[in-house]
């Protein structure tokens, strides 16, 4: 009698333990970013773009991000027909996976759908030089800068040790310093522009001369246009278009990259 009771007790505990473990495992799985990502992918494959975006955004809400995540969100928005948000997410992906060919293809294709693309004919020399760093992500650029800095110190130390041995050492060191400065500027520019870059997410928006509803319209921006935020005042952003034109637009019409 006693033995039978003990047996049932052990069985009950075992069942409780197994059920608890399974529930815990399920909870773990649902918190797993990989699982969430794949879940969203399956929704995308089923053509449920809204739901896919919602699941993808769970990861963003958890304070996580990845280039592929933004890429997939961008694709989902594109399929939904929200060009502005698609380009916005492609821009965000570009910060993390700038060399990705799929991303570049989709970004270019999305841009081709933007009405009235502002083309810039003359690009300043410095911008052209900075474009050489385009394939570096933010962290990649930081590591490059750190590497140049270490190499420069090493070279200077070697020059210090073997003073008369190296010819043209001044020119060599100067080149390294120039490279260091240029990379520093590129990183600075990237940080600065990333904090200011934005994309118009509404269908179209009028940029006005003043941050007032009935102010004169300066120009019109269309969905997906990339702009730079210069200043913020109440519900208004002072923005600069790629061709240099400046105006005030409603804060709700844009989203910071």
């Amino acid at each position, binding site marked *: 009698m006693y033995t039978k009771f003990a047996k049932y007790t052990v069985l009950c505990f075992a069942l409780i333990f197994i059920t608890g473990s399974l529930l815990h495992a399920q909870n773990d799985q649902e918190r797993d970013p990989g699982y969430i990502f794949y879940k969203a*992918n399956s929704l995308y494959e089923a053509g449920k773009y809204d739901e896919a975006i919602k699941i993808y955004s769970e990861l963003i809400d958890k*304070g996580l991000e990845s*280039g592929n995540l933004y890429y997939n969100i961008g694709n989902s928005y594109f399929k939904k027909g929200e060009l502005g948000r698609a380009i916005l997410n492609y821009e965000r992906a570009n910060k993390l996976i700038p060399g990705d060919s799929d991303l570049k*293809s989709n970004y270019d294709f999305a841009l081709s759908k933007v009405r009235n693309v502002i083309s810039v004919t003359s690009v300043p020399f410095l911008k052209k030089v900075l474009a050489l760093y385009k394939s570096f992500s*933010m962290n990649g650029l*930081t590591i490059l800068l750190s590497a140049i800095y270490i190499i420069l110190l090493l070279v200077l*130390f070697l020059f210090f040790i073997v003073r008369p041995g190296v010819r043209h050492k001044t020119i060599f060191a100067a080149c390294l310093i120039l490279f260091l400065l240029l990379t520093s500027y590129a990183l600075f520019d990237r940080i600065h522009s990333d904090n200011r870059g934005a994309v118009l997410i509404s269908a179209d928006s009028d940029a006005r001369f003043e941050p007032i509803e009935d102010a004169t319209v300066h120009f019109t921006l269309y969905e997906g246009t990339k702009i730079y935020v210069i200043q913020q005042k109440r519900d208004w952003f002072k923005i600069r278009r790629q061709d240099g034109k400046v105006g005030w637009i409603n804060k709700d019409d844009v989203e910071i990259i």
Partner: protein
Amino acid sequence: MKFSIAATLIVVSSVMSLLVLSVPVSAADVQFQIFLDRDSIYLGESAQLSIHFEGSTKILAMDVSDLEGFQSRYLGPSTRMSIVNGKMSSSVTHIYSLVPVKTGKFTIGPLSFEHDGDRYTSNKVAIEVLDSAARAGEHSQQKKTHEIQLEDRIFLEMDISKSRLYLNEIAQLHVKLYVNSMSVRDVQYPQYNHEGFSVEDFGKPREYQVNRAGTRYSVLDFQTEIFATKTGEFKLGPASLKANIVTRSNRQIPRSSFNDFFRDGFFGGYESTPIEIASDALTIEALSLPEENRPEDFKGAIGNFQLDVSVSPDKVKAGDPVTLYMIVSGTGNFNAVHSPVIKNKEGFKMYDPQIKLEPNRKVFEQVLIPTDDNIEKLPDILFSYFDTVKGQYKTIVKSNVMLKVSGADKEEITILDPSSIAERPLKKEVLGRDIIYIKESPGDIVIRDQYLYNNPVFLALQLLPLIIFIAGVNFHKKRERLSSDKGYARRLAAPRKAKKGIRQAEEYAQKNMALDFHDAVFRTLRDYLGNRFHVPSGGITAEALDTFLAGKGIDKHILDRLKNIFNECDMVRYAPSGINETKMHNTLREMKEIIDYLERHKDEEVRGKR
């Protein structure tokens, strides 16, 4: 020593050579003789003729090509020089191989030649040439009385199947080598003139034996096919053939072990003699084909042919291809056989035939596409040729070759012309465009807005290379100063060395070794002061302290204490008994305080200088 012997030998031999070469050949010295290595020989064998000149080695070989009854071949010279009892003699023998071309008795010589204006005449030698056929029974059979030529034993003949040929008519040409009672090897393919004829290469020759006028011959039969390419009368040949006659060697002179090895060692005393024999030419008449009754579809086929025609498949739908097989077989010149002619091409799309040439037949495979669904049979197929046996044209007609063509199912029949397809302009391909599919994996998931540039650990790590750099520079500078500034190096080393000395003095104090203790104290202080002020340590004594430390800013009280220690050390050396352990510890403490003071004073000095 070795060198001198070798040099002597070289000099002697050189002098002797010069002497030999410079000896003038006078007419009286030269003797001219000829020898044969045998006096009888069989047809097919060779004899060796030696023309010997005694008294000179510089006489060149003579031309003996016109010897009656023989073909000659120069084998080479043999020279000899000797010195006997101080008298030098030299000779040269030119050796020839003689191959008899007929039987009989022959006399060679006397030969003559001119040298330096003098004429020399040799002796003469006789040789009998016997019939090789009688050799087997030479002891029993009677000798034949009539003369036998070499040509009777080995000869070449040309033979052709027809001497009157039509243009392009094939004839069999034979070139036969007949050999009797001798061995032949290394037989080469015959060469012959064949202007006006197209000839094939000879195949592998056939070997057989024939009996001809009571004589048995071995025959090597070279066979090929020829046909005339021009009309008229032409000479075919003469054919010539090169071979080696294998003869028994009976060499007597010259003979060496090398000759034995190469001539007799392997082949049992046989040697080969090259020979070139020629046949008579043939006269061939090439006729043109008659114009009379020549069929329209005649394309030059000549011979005796048959034609077989079949089609596969024999039931098709209009538009489907069929293969027509036309096989021409028989005898004749297949090079001149062209595709049979399809009389009526209406209702068919036809492609050029594929041609296969096989032994005694030529196969034509032609793809046809019937375009008419009312076709029941193939159109008539004609093949015309000239029958060389009957001397007239013949035409083979193949009709009633069944081909049932039915209508196409649904699709419209379109016969595509490749040329028009090639010329048709290509429509520009329009490629679709859309976004590329989503990523299957999440990639590197990181915390949002966390970058290396705002990561404090990463930024702190950036200081590390700078610290290493500064430390490295300082270290290098210090090393450089230590190697260049001796005073600095000594000052830097002074407290370290003093510590070592103090430790040693402490050990002596604990062991109550007064003499060693004071010795260590004195040495430590003296070395320290020497290093500290960069002066020679050896000269520092109690009396000299004032001089050494003058102007160094040392407190007088410290100076006095220093002097006391120095004096104490001097005293102990002479009277060590009055020193106990307490006293030694006091002295040690004093020394430590003085060194400590001087070290601190150094820092003040540095600050004062700044």
